[in-house]
C-alpha cells in the first residue's frame, strides 16, 4: 500500500520521470508493433512518425504559444534537403545521427530568422507571411538546379544499416530487420525523442512563459516576460522539430524534391494538429495517424462507389477538410482535448455528486439577432475551468475581444 502511494507520488511529482517512463513504454510498444507488421505497414508507420514529429512541433507553437504557422512544410524542406546533401552516395559515410543533427541545426537557424520576423506579427498577418514562406521555398530548389536538383530533386542514399542495429534487431526479434523496418525504427525513435523533449519543455518554465504570452500579452509582460524572446524561442523549438521530421521524410522517401513540400503539406500538418487538439502532443500523434491511414480507407471506399482513381484520391482531403471545419465549429478542443475534458468533467461530477454549474457566459442578444457576440471565452459545452492553465489549445482560451 505504501509502495503504491510512493509510486503515485513519484508519478505526480516528477514530470521528468513520468515522461521518461512514457518514452520507454513508447519504445517498447513501437518495437512490438514493428516486429509484428509487414514491410508495407512499416513504411506507413514511418510516414506517420515524420508527420507526427512535425505536427508535434506545430502543436507546441500554435497550441501553447498561439502563433499560427502555415509554413511548417517549408521548414521540413530545409531538413530534408540538408539530409539529402549530406547523404549523396555510399562513400559519404556521415553517421545518420550527425546527419539528423545537422538537419535540425540548419532548420533551427532558418526557424530563428523566420521567428524573429514572425514575433512582430499577429493572427492573419502571421498566417499570410508563413503561407508566402510555404510557397516560396520550393522555388529556391527550382532556381538552383545545379546544387538542389530542380524539379527532380536529390536522391538520398541511405548508408548501410549499422552492424549493431542489425545485431540488436536480431537479438530482440530473431530476424534481421529489413531496410524499411530500420527506417521506421529510426523515424519512431526520432519522434519519441522529440516528443520527450517537447513535453518536458512545455511543462517547464519555458512552456509556462509560452502559455502566459498566448493567454494575455499585457499580463505576461507585466510579469517580466520578454514577449519577443518567448515567441522566437517557441518558433525555434517548433522549427527544430520540423527539421527532424524533414530529415526522416528524406530518408524514408529516399528523395528530397520540391513536390513533397507544397502548401498542401503545410495545410495537412495544420489539419493534423487541429483534429487531434491544439497544444496536445497526444493529439498531434492521433492527427498524424488519421492523416496516414485515412486516405487509403477513404480512397478504397471511393473506388468501390464507382469513382475513378483521380477523383477517389481527392476524397481524403475532402474528408479531413470537412472534419477540420466541424472540429472548429463543434469541438474546438479536438479529439484529445474533448476526451480530456469529458474525463475531467466526469471526475468532477463524481466528486461533487451532481452536475456542476458551467461558467459559460450567456450570449448577449440584441435586436432579436441570435448572433450577438459572446463575451465568454469558450463555447459552453467545452467550458471547464477545472482544466486550468494546462487546457490544451489556444482555440478556446485565447479569444480576445477583436471587434473594431
Amino acid at each position: 500500500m505504501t509502495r503504491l502511494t510512493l509510486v503515485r507520488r513519484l508519478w505526480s511529482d516528477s514530470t521528468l520521470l513520468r515522461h521518461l517512463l512514457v518514452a520507454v513504454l513508447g519504445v517498447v510498444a513501437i518495437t512490438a508493433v514493428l516486429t509484428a507488421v509487414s514491410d508495407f505497414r512499416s513504411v506507413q508507420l514511418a510516414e506517420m512518425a515524420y508527420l507526427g514529429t512535425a505536427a508535434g512541433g506545430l502543436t507546441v507553437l500554435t497550441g501553447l504559444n498561439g502563433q499560427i504557422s502555415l509554413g511548417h512544410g517549408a521548414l521540413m524542406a530545409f531538413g530534408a534537403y540538408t539530409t539529402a546533401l549530406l547523404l549523396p552516395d555510399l562513400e559519404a559515410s556521415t553517421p545518420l545521427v550527425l546527419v539528423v543533427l545537422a538537419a535540425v541545426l540548419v532548420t533551427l537557424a532558418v526557424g530563428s530568422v523566420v521567428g524573429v520576423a514572425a514575433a512582430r506579427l499577429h493572427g492573419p498577418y502571421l498566417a499570410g507571411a508563413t503561407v508566402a514562406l510555404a510557397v516560396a521555398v520550393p522555388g529556391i530548389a527550382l532556381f538552383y538546379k545545379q546544387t538542389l536538383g530542380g524539379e527532380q530533386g536529390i536522391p538520398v542514399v541511405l548508408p548501410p544499416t549499422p552492424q549493431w542495429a542489425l545485431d540488436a534487431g536480431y537479438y530482440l526479434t530473431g530476424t534481421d530487420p529489413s531496410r524499411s523496418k530500420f527506417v521506421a525504427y529510426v523515424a519512431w525513435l526520432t519522434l519519441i525523442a522529440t516528443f520527450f523533449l517537447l513535453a518536458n519543455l512545455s511543462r517547464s518554465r519555458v512552456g509556462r512563459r509560452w502559455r502566459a504570452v498566448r493567454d494575455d500579452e499585457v499580463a505576461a509582460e507585466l510579469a517580466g516576460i520578454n514577449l519577443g524572446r518567448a515567441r522566437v524561442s517557441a518558433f525555434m523549438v517548433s522549427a527544430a522539430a520540423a527539421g527532424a521530421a524533414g530529415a526522416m521524410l528524406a530518408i524514408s522517401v529516399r528523395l528530397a524534391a520540391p513536390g513533397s513540400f507544397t502548401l498542401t503539406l503545410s495545410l495537412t500538418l495544420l489539419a493534423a494538429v487541429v483534429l487531434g487538439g491544439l497544444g496536445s502532443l497526444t493529439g498531434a500523434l492521433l492527427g498524424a495517424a488519421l492523416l496516414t491511414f485515412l486516405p487509403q480507407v477513404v480512397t478504397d471506399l471511393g473506388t468501390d462507389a464507382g469513382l475513378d482513381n483521380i477523383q477517389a484520391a481527392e476524397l481524403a482531403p475532402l474528408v479531413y477538410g470537412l472534419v477540420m471545419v466541424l472540429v472548429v465549429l463543434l469541438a474546438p478542443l479536438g479529439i484529445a482535448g474533448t476526451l480530456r475534458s469529458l474525463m475531467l468533467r466526469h471526475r468532477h461530477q463524481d466528486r461533487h455528486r451532481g452536475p456542476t454549474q458551467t461558467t459559460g457566459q450567456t450570449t448577449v442578444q440584441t435586436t432579436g439577432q441570435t448572433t450577438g457576440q459572446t463575451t465568454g471565452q469558450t463555447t459552453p459545452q467545452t467550458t471547464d475551468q477545472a482544466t486550468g492553465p494546462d487546457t490544451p489549445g489556444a482555440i478556446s482560451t485565447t479569444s480576445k475581444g477583436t471587434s473594431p
Partner: protein
Amino acid sequence: MQQALNTALGGLTLGMVYAAFALALVLIWRSTRIVNFAQAPMAMITTYVALVIIDAGHSYWLGFSAALLSGLLLGAVLERVVIRPVEGKSHINAVILTLGLFIVLHATAGVIFGNEFSSFQAPFGVRGFKVGERTIALTGFGVVMGLLVLLFRFTDVGLRMRASAYNQEVARLLGVKVGRMLTLGWALAAFVGSLSGLLIAGGNLVHPGYMDSVVVFGFVAAVLGGLDSPVGAVIGGLVLGLSLSFVSGYVGSQLVPLAALAILMLVLTLRPGGLFSHAQARRV
C-alpha cells in the same frame, strides 16, 4: 526598353488581378475581421459553374452571369452557415476554419470535375490579340471598383455596411441588422472574387488549383496595403504585380514567390500593420 515596357504592362495587368483579389479580402476583413483563405477556391468553383454552362452549349454571357450569381450565393451561404459561429472569436479559429474550407472546396472540385485541365473561352474570342483582352479585363475591374465605391459612399445599404463594420454594437442599437450586412459583405466579396476568377480564366486553362497562386499573392497585396484599406489593397496589388513581373522577367520565374515573401517581410518588419494602416490600439 521595349522589354521593360512590356514587362511593366504585364505587371500592371497582373497587379490588377491581385488588386481585385486583395479588395475582396479587404471587404471581408473590414466587416468580419476574418481573412478568407477560401476566396480562391470559391472563385474557382464559380468559374467551373460558368464552364459547365458554356460547355452545355449556352452563351458565354449566360455562364458569366450564372457564375457571378452563384458567387453571391456561395458567399452568403458560407457566411451564414459556417463563418457566423466563429465571428468575434479568436483569430486562430477563423484562420483554421477558412483553411478547412479551402481544402474542402478544392477537394470537392477535384471529385466532381477531376484534376485535368480544361480550356475556358475568352469573352470575345479574340485570341492572340493580347492588348485587347487586357484592356477588357482592366475595364472590367475598373467598372466594378467604381461601382463598389459608389455603393459604399452614396447608398443607404453602403452606409449600413460601413456602420456595422465600424462598430457592431452601436450599429445594432441604431437598428441596423448587422448580421444581414455581414452576409451581404461576404456575398459582395465572393462576387468580386468570382469576377476576378472569371477574368483570369478567360482564354486560359482551368483546373482546381488554378487560383492558388493568386490567393497567395492577393493576400500578400492585401497585407502590403494594410488589411483595412481598400485603396491600400489596390496600390499593394499594383506594386506587387509590377515588382513580381520584373523579377520574373529579369531574374527567373522560380523566384517570384520568394520575391513576394521578401517584399512582404520587408514591409511588415517596417510597418507590422501594412503600408496604409492607421495606428491601432488592440483591446486587452
